[in-house]
């Protein structure tokens, strides 16, 4: 046991450096203030959202449904995150050689990896669940048992999605190692599974209908849908120590059993994942090519991008959803407009149709701002950043090449979505031109913002790509700021639409605002970020 505790302590020291900012000139105050500000922002947003949900539920005395919704949402979120994080967090870690050479069981190594995974998911889950749990206390007079039950619930909630995602992660890694281009295979397989999970999540309506026929009560329905959600509701409404014990035993046994069973397979898959297929049949067959500086830098960035499955999945998923959204929008348009008309009878189908260009503008903003690629690009240089800094190339050129690469990656997805929407709905020539310009300017804003954030919060000592892409300060700040900008944009667009402003004028105004933001960001980049770039040490 002592050994395991020492191991966890040693491994977590490097991993828990979530807020470690490697920049000597960064003031201590901003290091502390930013995470607090972000936490308050997320907490407050979720808390407001929870209040919005619970209010109508109070009228029908079904407040506990709020908690089951949040348990279910957290489960889906952890599972989706876990699927594309697990392969990277479990396999090919930098400390593999050290851990596997120690006189400890292979299962212990897997346990350490999964435990680290658990701790991070626990933090994320708490960020979502705690506001809902607090909101519940505001509306319902809870019994004293509510508090220990909720704490135990928080601690055990990540287990089921983690166990599922490590099984899927192992299967993905084991399958992809059989392919010549295992990274590409892993990206494709992960995307398929994620889309499948999303498909199921969006089609829960049918599952719920089916379960509702068999369920004896709402709580029974929730339990049938997802056991922890039902168990939690049962424990807080009608506490029984046996239910609590059963819940604890089920979760811990599941965790222990999965570690026990997957221990040996883990070692085999890890060995295969490390194996690099080399080709010795290219004697003197190498190609010497010349290229200009920026295209060569873009090529280098692109090679890095496609070689990292977690990077591709993280960046590409929002973009794929954007294209799917553009495909689904005309198909589901009628049912969507009927639903809107039910809530707001004054809105006609024609009005919604004429608002489509503004909706598309909003979708472009959302998908671009929430798919920041550049917010990881500096950190993903790791120690090779020194090579880049020793080259006779201006930092501004290096930074621009990263922004251009990200925009080149995003642009095809956005343009495909645009074209699909142009074909299915009526757009004037001016609207088409404005949307296409927006499809270039908005990703430029998102990616310039991303690189500025990454230069401000670099993490050059990460253990693997997942730490950079999912668990670094830079990626968190980029997502939060992206969410904030998206929220402001959508809110502003809604106000303009409510005031019956001209559609073309709304898009034009949006475009002007984003162009101004882009210019401001470029000025900032040129003046401040370059200096910060030169100060990054690794």
């Amino acid at each position, binding site marked *: 046991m002592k050994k395991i505790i020492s191991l966890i302590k040693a491994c977590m020291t490097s991993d828990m450096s979530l807020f470690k900012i490697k920049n*000597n000139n960064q003031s201590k105050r901003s290091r502390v203030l930013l995470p607090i500000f972000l936490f308050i922002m997320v907490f407050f947003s979720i808390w407001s959202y929870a209040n919005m949900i619970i209010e109508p539920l109070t009228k029908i005395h079904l407040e506990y449904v709020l908690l089951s919704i949040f348990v279910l949402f957290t489960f889906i979120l952890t599972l989706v995150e876990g699927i594309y994080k697990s392969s990277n967090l479990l396999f090919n870690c930098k400390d593999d050689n050290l851990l596997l050479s120690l006189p400890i069981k292979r299962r212990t190594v897997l346990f350490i990896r999964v435990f680290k995974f658990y701790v991070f998911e626990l933090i994320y889950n708490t960020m979502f669940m705690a506001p809902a749990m607090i909101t519940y206390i505001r509306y319902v007079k809870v019994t004293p048992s509510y508090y220990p039950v909720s704490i135990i619930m928080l601690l055990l909630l990540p287990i089921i999605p983690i166990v599922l995602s490590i099984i899927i992660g192992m299967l993905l890694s084991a399958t992809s190692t059989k392919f010549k281009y295992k990274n590409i295979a892993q990206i494709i397989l992960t995307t398929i599974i994620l889309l499948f999970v999303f498909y199921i999540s969006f089609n829960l309506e049918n599952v719920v209908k089916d379960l509702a026929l068999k369920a004896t009560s709402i709580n029974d329905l929730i339990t049938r849908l997802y056991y922890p959600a039902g168990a939690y509701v049962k424990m807080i409404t009608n506490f029984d120590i046996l239910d609590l014990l059963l819940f604890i035993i089920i979760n811990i046994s599941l965790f222990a059993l999965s570690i026990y069973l997957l221990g040996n397979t883990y070692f085999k898959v890890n060995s295969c994942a490390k194996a*690099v*297929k*080399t*080709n*010795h049949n*290219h*004697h*003197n*067959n*190498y*190609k*010497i*090519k*010349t*290229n*200009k*500086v920026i295209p*060569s*830098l873009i*090529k*280098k960035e692109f*090679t*890095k991008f496609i*070689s*990292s499955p977690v990077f591709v999945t993280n960046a590409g998923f929002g973009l794929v959803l954007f294209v799917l959204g553009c495909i689904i929008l005309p198909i589901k348009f009628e049912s969507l407009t009927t639903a809107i008309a039910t809530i707001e009878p004054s809105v006609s189908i024609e009005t919604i149709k004429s608002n489509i260009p503004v909706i598309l503008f909003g979708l472009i903003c959302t998908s671009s701002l929430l798919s920041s690629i550049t917010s990881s690009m500096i950190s993903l240089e*790791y*120690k*090779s950043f*020194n*090579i880049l*800094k*020793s*080259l*006779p*190339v*201006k930092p501004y050129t290096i930074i621009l090449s990263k922004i251009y690469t990200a925009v080149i990656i995003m642009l095809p997805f956005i343009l495909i979505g645009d074209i699909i929407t142009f074909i299915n709905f009526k757009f004037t020539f001016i609207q088409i031109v404005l949307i296409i310009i927006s499809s270039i300017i908005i990703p430029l804003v998102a990616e310039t913002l991303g690189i500025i954030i990454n230069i401000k919060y670099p993490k050059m000592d990460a253990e693997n790509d997942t730490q950079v892409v999912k668990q670094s300060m830079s990626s968190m700040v980029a997502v939060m700021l992206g969410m904030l900008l998206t929220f402001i944009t959508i809110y502003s667009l809604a106000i303009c639409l409510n005031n019956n402003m001209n559609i073309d004028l709304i898009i034009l105004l949006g475009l002007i605002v984003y162009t101004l933001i882009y210019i401001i960001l470029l000025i900032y980049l040129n003046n401040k970020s370059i200096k910060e770039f*030169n*100060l990054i*040490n690794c």
Partner: protein
Amino acid sequence: MIEIKNVTKKYGDNVALNNVSFKVDDGCVFAFIGHNGAGKTTLIKAITGIHDFDEGDILINGKSIKKDAIECKKEMAFVPDNPELYENMKAIDFINFICDMYEVDYVTRKNNINKYAKMFEMEDHLNETIDSFSHGMKQKIALISALSHNPQILIMDEPFVGLDPKAVFDIKQVMNEMVKEGKTIFFSTHILDVAEKLCSKVAIIKQGRLVKVGTMKEIKGDKSLEKVFLELEQ
């Protein structure tokens, strides 16, 4: 020529380089020796423009690395101690990438790549991705890419670590060739007998301060370099 003028570099309260000054002439093989953590890599990173420094200046062929970093970097090539190259790239793509950054024309790069790939016995491996390479092979790729743009000044951080004897011999040959052409070589090392045999000048650094600098003869006199170094460390 490299001129280091009163360079001071601090990491918070820790002074990594304390008022370091010396000159490395053209056609000179210059060894930079010191204990682990003495400040060797910090100085090398300052010379190559990877790190900024707090005081002083570094001139590369008369140009300041602070004021004219790009022009200075064009004169130099840098081989890091632990070659963290772009692992996902093919070796040839990495070398091409470095050549692109130095704007090396096709003929020059072709001649140099072929010459050094053959010398370091890496011809068969240039089409492989770098992540499949051993430490020594990565070091060779770093060397080939550094030499492929005909640098005036070659800067290496611990260049002999992890290399096989044949590669060490080849590097020494390359160094001799470069010196004959009037080029400058500056490297840090722990291997004192190699430094003793190869270098015309040497500098010893201790806790960020330069404790000795001069020709090999001036530094060691009748003693061995190892003995002088150990005496200074005590």
